[in-house]
């Protein structure tokens, strides 16, 4: 076992990515994720056959990722909310071209230039596609620095496995905070061969091309259906979530990322007052853990979704609950983090 390290979330992502074999990073500075860009510069510029480019814009950065990924290497870019909006065009192309890559979004308050404090208001953008066309990212939502490490490594594997871009959806707080992390030895997993689609020059074979379009609508529809098939598989096989105290709960909180951590403190404080709270924490936001939510709604009739948004994930929770339980929402936005006491007050409203 390796020694524990005290690391900032943003830097931990960088270290995890490099250890996952990502030696190609293209980025553009933006608060509150700039430490990740700086970390990659510090490490990759000293590594043989590794590449760090500070691109001229987020748009250029994601397109550099597109180019690098087309040659079969593990490539990554990172940004925060406004910068992620700029990357959407490129992300849509990469999804259509069915290339693997990892995109990190350490969200801040929005909309517009918003604030630089943490937010979760990019949920729709991250999970529903974000750019034009029917596509999804594989979206992973870490709630601790250790999980940033583990999920960053998983993100590369999942992206390769499904030849689809994966996103780490964090927030400014988790990126800035330091916690103890371990870089554990990971089990070797079998990933599909990239040989079939990588551009390497056509020596000894027919030429290959990667074109994210087809002007024949029937062919384009076929491509859409093929991509959709991957999403169905993801929904079947890759859903991840954490549950705490679902049995006998008076109310279930659904929250992800840092807000789920706050919810855990709320749970223990509520318990002291005799209130029994359960928690469902989605770890994959796409595919969304709808089954566990649906099953729980058969047993517990009150839900509270807490987000740093005006209510985005709550829509997916409502779809999963499908009218079987009452779904309430509490959110703070613009960079404001909901406090445990606010959430507890909210809970008491519904348990009267």
């Amino acid at each position: 076992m390796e020694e524990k390290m005290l690391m900032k979330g943003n830097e931990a992502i960088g270290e995890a990515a490099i250890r996952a074999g990502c030696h190609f990073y293209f980025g553009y500075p933006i608060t509150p994720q700039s430490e990740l860009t700086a970390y990659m510069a510090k490490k990759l510029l000293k590594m043989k056959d590794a590449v760090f480019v500070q691109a001229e814009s987020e748009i250029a950065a994601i397109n550099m990722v597109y180019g690098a990924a087309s040659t079969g290497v593990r490539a990554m870019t990172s940004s925060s909310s406004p910068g992620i909006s700029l990357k959407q065009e490129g992300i849509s192309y990469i999804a259509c071209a069915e290339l693997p890559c990892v995109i990190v979004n350490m969200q801040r308050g929005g909309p517009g230039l918003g604030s630089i404090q943490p937010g979760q208001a990019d949920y729709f953008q991250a999970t529903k596609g974000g750019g034009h066309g029917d596509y999804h990212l594989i979206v992973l939502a870490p709630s601790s620095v250790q999980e940033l490490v583990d999920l960053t490594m998983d993100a590369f594997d999942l992206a390769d496995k499904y030849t689809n871009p994966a996103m780490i959806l964090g927030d400014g707080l988790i990126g800035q905070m330091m916690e103890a992390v371990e870089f554990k030895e990971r089990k070797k997993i079998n990933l599909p061969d990239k040989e079939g689609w990588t551009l390497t020059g056509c020596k000894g074979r027919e030429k290959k091309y990667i074109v994210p379009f087809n002007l024949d609508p029937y062919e384009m529809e076929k491509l859409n259906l093929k991509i959709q098939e991957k999403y169905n598989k993801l929904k079947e096989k890759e859903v991840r979530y954490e549950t705490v105290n679902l049995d006998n709960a008076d109310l279930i909180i659904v929250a992800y990322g840092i807000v789920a951590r706050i919810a855990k403190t709320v749970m223990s404080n509520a318990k002291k007052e005799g209130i029994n709270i359960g928690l469902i924490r989605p770890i994959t936001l796409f595919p969304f853990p709808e089954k566990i939510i649906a099953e729980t709604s058969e047993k517990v009739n009150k839900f509270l979704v807490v987000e740093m948004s005006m209510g985005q994930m709550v829509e997916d929770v409502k779809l999963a609950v499908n009218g079987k339980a009452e779904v309430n929402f509490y959110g703070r936005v613009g960079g404001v983090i909901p406090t445990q006491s606010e959430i507890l007050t909210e809970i008491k409203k519904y348990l009267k």
Partner: protein
Amino acid sequence: MKKVFESPKSLTKDPFTYCPGCHHGIAHRLVAEALDEFGVREKTIGVCPVGCSVFAYVFFDCDMICAAHGRAPAVATGIKRAKPDSIVFTYQGDGDLASIGTAEIVHTANRGENITVIFINNAIYGMTGGQMAPTTLVGQVTQTSPYGRDPKTMGYPIKVAEMLSTLKGVAYISRVALSKPAYILKAKKAIRKAFQSQIEGKGFSLVEILSTCPTNWGLSPIEANKWLEENMIPYYPLGEFKTPEEVS
């Protein structure tokens, strides 16, 4: 019997689908010939743009990828950095390179990325049906400059070769035309120099090719060649703007 003329290996057998009199076909062929002559076809990755030449991936017989509008230089950067031994070129029109993709082309050139850019300047948007390009001449009538390009509100045509040649990271830049055989021979030379510069690792190279768009100019192919020589060349002078000594 000795074979004196054949289709370059770096082109597929697919017939070009470009309009009659359009210069894309000639430009494609010259690039393909250069790739053949340097023997680099099998390690070349081309990046096609959005615009008429989005179909370049069909015609070039080497690995190809299609970039979003204007982003080809960024995509090429990613490829070249990941595979430094490959030969990477972008093929871009004037809307793609000189309008929506200005940030990408300027910074790719400024970083001195060791790639080759083939820049087709026909002073108009072709694929979308003849709108004003950043390179459209003053007074030129297009769908979006129906009374002629008025520099007071639409600015002046951008001279890409001159502008980029001020950047230190650039190794080779020249402007050529394809309207007559003598020009075509010169264009071929320039394209060869650009790829040679890349092969020798000298840095960013670009060849601006003045081309016709008879369809959207509303001219016959012959008239279009004449229009190019009478109107474009005086504003966009031909020649080399930057050469590393070893390449010139």
